């Protein structure tokens, strides 16, 4: 697989580390134990389109949201997360 990092360009998947399901919304620190349990343990495990966190650990170290098809492994849109999420990569 190859992932196009918005900062570094198209790279081998070997440079990236999987970081979990990006559709899970992380609760606030003071959220209830039920909310936290759901966020930590409950997963949809979809067949097909999915959004995941990946870190470009052997490149710019940016955390990315990567659209991936769990059947074909086709990579879709890749975006930065966090405060740079809406910035254009230059």
């Amino acid at each position, binding site marked *: 697989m*190859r992932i196009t990092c918005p900062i570094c360009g198209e790279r081998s998947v070997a440079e990236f580390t999987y*970081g979990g399901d990006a559709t899970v919304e992380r609760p606030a620190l*003071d959220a209830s134990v039920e909310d936290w349990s759901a966020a930590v343990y409950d997963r949809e495990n979809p067949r097909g389109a999915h959004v995941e966190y990946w870190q470009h650990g052997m490149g710019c170290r940016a955390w990315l949201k990567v659209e991936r098809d769990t059947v074909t492994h086709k990579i879709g849109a890749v975006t930065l997360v966090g405060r740079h999420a809406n910035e254009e990569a230059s």
Partner: protein
Amino acid sequence: MSGYRLKTGGSLIDRDAPVSFTFDGKPVSGLQGDTVASALLASGHRTLARSFKYHRRRGIVSCGTEESNALITIGEGGRAEPNARATTAELYTGLVATSQNRWPSLNFDVMSVNGLLSPFFGAGFYYKTFMGPTRGAWHFYEHFIRRAAGMGAASKQADPDRYEKTTLFCDVLIVGAGAAGLSAALAAARSGARVILADENAAPGGWLQAETRKIDDMPASDWAKSSAATLDASENVRVLPRTTVYGYYDQNQLGAIERVTDHLLVKPGHLPRHRHLTIRATSVVLATGAFEQPLLHDGNDRPGGMLAGAVLRYALSYGVAAGGRVAFSGTHDGIWETALACAEAGIGVAAVADTRRDPPADLVAACEKFGIKARARAAIVRADGPGHVHAVEIAEVSRDGRVMNGIEKVNADICATSSGWMPAVHLHSQAGSRPGYDEERGIFLPGTPREDWIAAGSCNGTFGLSAAIAEGATAGREAVKAAGFRRPRAALPVVEADREASEPMHLRIVESPRGTKAKIFVDQQHDVTASDVKLAHREGFRSVEHLKRYTTLGMATDQGKTSNVAGLSLMAKLRDQNIADVGTTTFRAPYAPVALGALGGREPGAHIRPLRKTPMHDWHAENGAEMMPAGAWMRPRAYFKAGETLEQAYVREARMVRQSVGIVDVSTLGKIDVQGPDAATFLNRVYSNPFAKVPVGKARYGLMLRDDGLLFDDGTSWRLAEDRFLMTTTTANAGPVMQFLEFLLATAWPDLKVHLTSVTDAWAGIAVAGPNSRDVIARITDIDMSNEAFPFMGVREGTVCGNPGMIARLSFSGELAYEVYVPARFGLAAWEGLLAAGRDRDIIPYGMEALGTLRIEKGHVAGAELDGRTTAEDLGLSGMVSKKKDFIGKAMLNRPGLVEDKRLKLVGLKSEDSASIRIGSQLVQTEEAGKPGKSHGHVTSNCYSPALEAYIALALLEDGPERHGETLWAADPVRGGHVKVSVRDPHFFDPDGSRMHV
């Protein structure tokens, strides 16, 4: 009669270049261009191997990668490669070939007695015999059974060869350089696109090597050769011979093995044996060809039983007659054409049997002109021995393979069969939907592509020569278009008198006149017979997946390339279903065996991962230290003096630290520079204890939890400025902590103004511990070391041995102690400076064992206790968990399972037997060693304590803190050991911490 070299013919051999090699120690001669199989066949060898289970004689079946029987060991010592296919191994002078699975010799094999016992060794024999009450017998018999059954033995020596890995990029990859592949490459090359043409054989052409028709007025093999040469000369084309594309992965990434020096007499030192290629192609043409399938009959596994096409290919490519009298049996026109071509090449052909009612009259007449016995509606129903084939029985057979009548015995030494060709859809299947079975044509065809590939030629069911060439050209043009190039024009070569390929009759197995006594081998490599398949059906293992696992059909090294189809069709017949409904198993990579060395590349042994060394590494090694791995790092275990055991060494070191002073290399601790206006807020959320109000110039011990409330890591963080901390982590968790913190800043708290930098390698760290540590450091620094100016947990910047550095007053050992940090390049200077400064105080370096001993005596936890299952409360650290603030892990910390009674909690153990308490021992209440009973917990860390003069340990024990004073036994039944221990507080030494505050 056996095989011999024909007077003429052989497109691949050089008759002027003899090559000598040995087979089972005896010299054999062949020719340059031979494979081991063609040379052995030419020199009259018939039995090359003994079979897997019954030790039956086995010879050469095929002429290529699909070979099921002729498996040999090539090379000696560390270079010995077991289970090599003689049919693909290129010959060179001095090659050493050895037969397998026989004792004492190939012709007299003691284990062939297994064949007599074969009625007992049917499918599922081992499951039935060794399950249930007799299960224990397996442990006794296993050794003998494993010795008796098997293939070649792997060498126990290290592989002396070198392997490489590389990545190739191209616009179009073409897999297979047969008629269709060459045609595709010629078309694609004209576009200017970067083209790679990979083929598993040494010479291009594939089955063109056994083609009698001319292409562009040239012999087909010459056309292949000149086409490949034209391609190789094009700048945009790379032709890779001896390259097997074995796997098709996501996003058009393919794996291939290039065999670089296997065929060379002198293997140049600069070349690797194999090169692993990762090929990234924009589009791919799969022209992988097809495998001829046998027509199975009684005795089909005898040496002399071959695939019809292989007999012809040996004649045309290598000038080898497989035998003196060949009998053919098949289900389509090809069997006649092959027999005729063999006869024209000078091979004696005894008979041709065709199962169809009305084979083409012209082919029958042509055969009869050669004096070949021709029979329609007939098949070879039995090959007779003894040993290899001496005669065949031809009989009239019904449409479903039953023997009708008219059995006729024909003398023959080769029994060549064909039930048609099966597309090689392995790669297609790996990168697409499952292959579909075309019931009408009786073949599997490629499914729907999931990746960007186009199939061409016989792998796509296009068997005619000119049709395959035309389809290849079209595929080449479409592939370059898909890769973004203009479709080039293509001029197709002219094929002489092309006859349309006939569809074979659907029959894979003919029954035997001997009925149930017949030995019809479906999977020859795994000795699976038609009776085994029937047995599996009777016993209910009827799905394809069950059949495969119960009988091991298709699970040998050839992955059933010439046996799966017959097995499936037999099961379909037994179930009275179509093959399409019975289904096929999935084709998985690798398509052909891959040497593990090639996957390892240049990173075997010590190179398997980077080795990390501290700036003081060489000093440790030169001063008696035994180095041990700690994650990717190497750390000194102990510094040995002459004659010392490990225990003596670390006990001496630990004692010296408590008495005077010692230093230990702590450069491996993870270090993260945390900067930004929100640095304190960030750490306050990350650690379970408060960090918001740590003053500048102070360090604090912090505990980090995971989201689920369990312990993650611990370490100290030093506040260097209002907006700056130096965080330390455990050696093992340096990477994971950094990654988690980056994740939090990116996803959860993007509003926090904090930046993280890993500075683990930037700093060398030295812990200086012992009552004299302050005095020694004072001699090498300009920092005021007095207790008043530099209190416990203080952090100061200044000089260390004249270089810039930082010192923090921290103690892991429980003694007065400091951690001295200097930039990595000054690490050795600081280390040697400290040792020089402390010489009159008998300063010593100490290693990991002494470091562990000192912390165990203090009851400090480390990686062994932070095992991913423990909570802060389990380890007696509940005081470190804030009740007032929010932090990572807080919400899930008090879930019922994490606070219930009976959790394993930290305790100290003292040996009452003067014996070491081994790590991993289970804590039990029974004194009797043999019957440990229920486990109440386990030992996590241990040492001999010089302070207590006893063996002590840390352990996790059910309700531990309430059981101080109890007597238990540390049971270690596997390694042997049953030590009486007393449970106590884990703070063995100086529990009120007075020593570190002086």
